[in-house]
């Protein structure tokens, strides 16, 4: 698979700044999969009490919100996307907060983690982000349902990588999970990973369609065994997208995977995270359950479109002491 990168210096800046060994494919371990447990009530309790247990205030809150921005995959995934719309989004990714505000925060140069678009928008995004270290992620493999012919789904990955996407967000076949066909899920993920080549692959589990948290946990483990660099909750198109309980299940699976293999797999909650306060809760959950190392863009992303706007308002409030308004901030 040919990757297109023309400028070696640019390629280097687009790679994650911290170097971790990349997840490799390991054999499917059915005993591990069978031993996976997820007690829904207990997980919900942990998720429900966490916001009351952790609180960040003042400068710390501002710093955490800046961190959240640096972890956003700024996303547009609409049928009416155009190059113009994507250019605007990329401009926002490069300058997510007004320069003046960033200067007052001492955070000049802050960008989002990536831009996430459909395949057809990849060239426009790559062009718009040239000269930055912001990678372009493409949703792929028949996103969002993942029910197009398998060979076409694999080919789609190749096309997006060729077009300059450094990250590929694939969708799994939910039916493999619902039918308990773990081998099929593993094989599918492994082939998709292979198709990505050097591009990092995020496995979208579409947790809102998997029925149970136990299935979420099992699918997480299998995708990691099959080489996923990231596991991601949702396409944003399911009736229920990222939630704290689902997050807890997936990051505990990541933790278990790390404990057993020494490999750090990344996590991306996507869909439904729209408020600055929500982002802080997510970050504290990652910090407490996985550790600080996962609070870097090579291991954590928010898949979000409207979150940035709320964070901008909170940051302006932090600096000015007055509550902000959305029209004061450039739209993305």
């Amino acid at each position, binding site marked *: 698979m040919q990757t297109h990168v023309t400028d070696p210096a640019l390629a280097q800046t687009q790679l994650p700044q911290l170097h971790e060994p990349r997840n490799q494919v390991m054999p499917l371990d059915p005993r591990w999969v069978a031993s996976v*447990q*997820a*007690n*829904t*009530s*207990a*997980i*919900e*309790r*942990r998720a429900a*009490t966490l916001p*009351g*247990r*952790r*609180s*960040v*205030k*003042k*400068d*710390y809150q*501002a*710093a*955490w919100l*800046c*961190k959240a921005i*640096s972890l956003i995959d700024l996303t547009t995934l609409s049928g009416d996307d155009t190059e113009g719309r994507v250019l605007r989004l990329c401009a926002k990714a490069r300058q997510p907060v007004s320069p003046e505000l960033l200067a007052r*925060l*001492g*955070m000049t140069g802050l960008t989002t983690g990536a831009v996430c678009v459909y395949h057809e928008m990849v060239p426009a995004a790559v062009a718009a982000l040239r000269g930055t270290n912001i990678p372009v992620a493409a949703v792929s493999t028949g996103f969002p349902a993942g029910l197009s012919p398998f060979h076409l789904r694999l080919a789609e990955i190749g096309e997006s990588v060729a077009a300059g996407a450094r990250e590929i967000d694939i969708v799994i076949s939910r039916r493999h999970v619902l039918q308990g066909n773990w081998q099929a899920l593993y094989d599918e993920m492994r082939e998709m990973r292979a198709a990505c080549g050097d591009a990092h692959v995020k496995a979208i589990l579409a947790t809102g369609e998997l029925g*149970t*948290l*136990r299935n979420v946990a099992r699918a997480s483990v299998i995708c990691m065994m099959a080489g996923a660099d990231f596991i991601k909750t949702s396409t944003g198109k399911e009736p229920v997208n990222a939630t704290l309980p689902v997050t807890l299940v997936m990051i*505990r699976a990541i*933790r*278990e995977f790390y*404990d057993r293999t020494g490999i750090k797999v990344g996590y991306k909650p996507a869909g439904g995270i729209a408020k600055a306060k929500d982002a802080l809760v997510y*970050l*504290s959950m990652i*910090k*407490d359950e996985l550790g*600080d190392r996962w*609070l870097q863009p090579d291991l954590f992303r928010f898949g979000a479109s409207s979150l940035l706007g709320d964070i901008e308002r909170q940051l302006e409030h932090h600096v000015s002491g007055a509550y902000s308004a959305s029209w004061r901030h450039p739209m993305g």
Partner: protein
Amino acid sequence: MTIKEIFDTMDYGPAPESSAEAMAWIAGFKGRFGHFINGAFTKPGVTFETRNPATGAVLAEVSQATGADVVAAVKAARKAQPKWAALGGHGRAKVLYAIARILQKQSRLFAVLETLDNGKPIRESRDIDIPLAQRHFYYHAGMAQLMDSELPDRAPLGVCGQIVPWNFPLLMLAWKIAPALAMGNTVILKPAEYTSLTALLFADICGQAGVPPGVVNIVTGDGAVGEMIVAAQVDKIAFTGSTAVGRKIREATAGRGLALTLELGGKSPYIVFEDADLDSAVEGLVDAIWFNQGQVCCAGSRLLVQESVAERFYAKLRTRMDGLRIGDPLDKCIDVGAIVDPVQLDAITRLVAENPEGTHYRAACAMPAVGSFYPPTLITGLSSASTLMQEEIFGPVLVATTFRTPVEAVELANNSRYGLAATVWTENINLALDIAPKLVAGVVWVNATNLFDAAAGFGGMRESGFGREGGWEGLSSYTKSKTALKPMKQIAAFAGNGGPVSGIDRTAKLYIGGKQARPDGGYSTAIHGPKGALLGHASLANRKDIRNAVEAANAAKGWGKTTAHNRAQILYYIAENLSARAPEFAARLRDLTGQRGEAEVEASIRRLFTYAAWADKFDGQVHSVPIRGVALAMREPVGTIAALCPDEAPLLGLISVMAPAIAMGNRVVLVASEPFPLVATDFYQVLDTSDVPGGVVNILTGSHAELAPTLAAHMDIDAVWSFSSTDLSKGIEGKAAGNLKRTWVNNGMSRDWAGAEGRAFLDAATEVKNIWIPYGE
């Protein structure tokens, strides 16, 4: 640090809750508090300092109550009580509702004050203690409303003395005051000397809630004040605190006819099976043993992990411990706050240091430089013989051992003097619902821990005390039957010197383990009729016969696991066989007492039918607790019940205590009517022919006064009832302090056995165990 630096470290930073409003409230009293008696604060007397354990700073000065203060408080409560009761259920409901509302409106003030005084994290006082306290007043406002219609036969006890601990100062106050007031009692409550402030704030809002003067009285001070309350002219003592103090209170109240509930210590098992969601079980331990710094009577302090997952589980647990944040309790980002007082900190430190056994792991979390703090600690590799596996540490120290099988898990869990709470983690519902009923604990949590609600009773078994707080089951602790009792006189045996009436000499032995056994001592006493005729000889049982009878009873544990239908069948069968021999028993009663016996035999048969009927109908409940799940209030047998049977109704009395006890699955050791024992010894044959398994019913004859102390002191008897006409109540209640067994004594009052049946007996024959089962997939 700059924002950029924080951006790189991603530290939490300080998130302090302001103490300004709470300090202003204290300043409003110029930092010195008197008692709250008859609706007003007294002038401060001799005071002592109350401190913030996180900093050592003095918060306020609180008065040490004098004897006169306690007398004044009791007098005020006594005077206010009739009018408070006469206010009626709805009238009291309105007041309790107002208390709940004001607690809610001032919730942050209460939370901050609690954290300042106690050292618990603001997260806990804000999200757990204060909301639960409100909930208790809301819930019991409802109970006041419903009392007239749902509890028509129950009356308030009168004046209740209540002594609460320092670990949940306001919450324990709410647990005590809300049900007491709802049922028409008035109270005198003493908060712990470390943590008096929220009780005083509560007193301050009582006026705003329309609590009439004298209904709530708060006196402050140390244990000496507690002793004064116990000694005062009150009708009930409710105590939450240590087992040692509970035992003293049991002794001090013995024979005074007081109602008593004790909620004492624990060493509650936390059982993790190999199929559990281990990560969730680890998180559960944070709520079990690091909640309130482990200063929780029901803390899951004894970890039992299945061997197959133990090392993995410990590794996960150690990682989790390192993530705990310990420090300023007013910080909203703190998990573990301060130990309530340096004295407690010393006690924890000493207990752990003196027992170096096992592998000690201290959480690698940053410790505050000053203040009363103890690091979260895990001690693995212990056995049940280890001191730390048996003694309550009352601090953030978790001790652990492993088990191999579910049976072994239950054995280890129950290998304790305590029986307050237990936690079970497994994804297997069959296993969970098999284990929960087998655990000796008043509360069992499945895949969760430390869940509380006003709708579900809380309280212990064994040396964790008795009585329940919360739920319908908690109301009996604050009410009494409206039926008036009359003083009784001792009934002496008839004297005589005559020879045998007729026939072949019959030997009345003891009935132990389903067999007739000669008395160990080899003594018998002659039993005469009213006219002096010799009716026969009754064995004189001694302490060894009690030992044997209790061993037989405990060997018959399987009775509690038989189906209720089966127990009912056996009770009907006893009735059937008694009925077949009714004339003979009637004649025996006439010979013994000189009264016609037909009616008593007939009443006995009816009574057997009554409890055969109840056997499968005295249902538990499913409480409406605010979780997605159920709290099953299961009725469990108390265990082995010893009863000194009524003298005045030798057959009906014996059956009236035996039948409810065995109907509910208990085993009994009965001491027959002392003056008229021979109808009981005749009854052996009825039992023999009725398929009663050996050991379920054991009957002794002999001196009540001589046997009662041994029964009351026996560590393997779970309850002692006395309806003897000999005045034994004080001795029994005093001796029962040994293992804190349940007692039900007549206090020298008689009851009419013709009508003595029903719920009071069934309640006494059962313990309510609340099993919380959250569900959801």
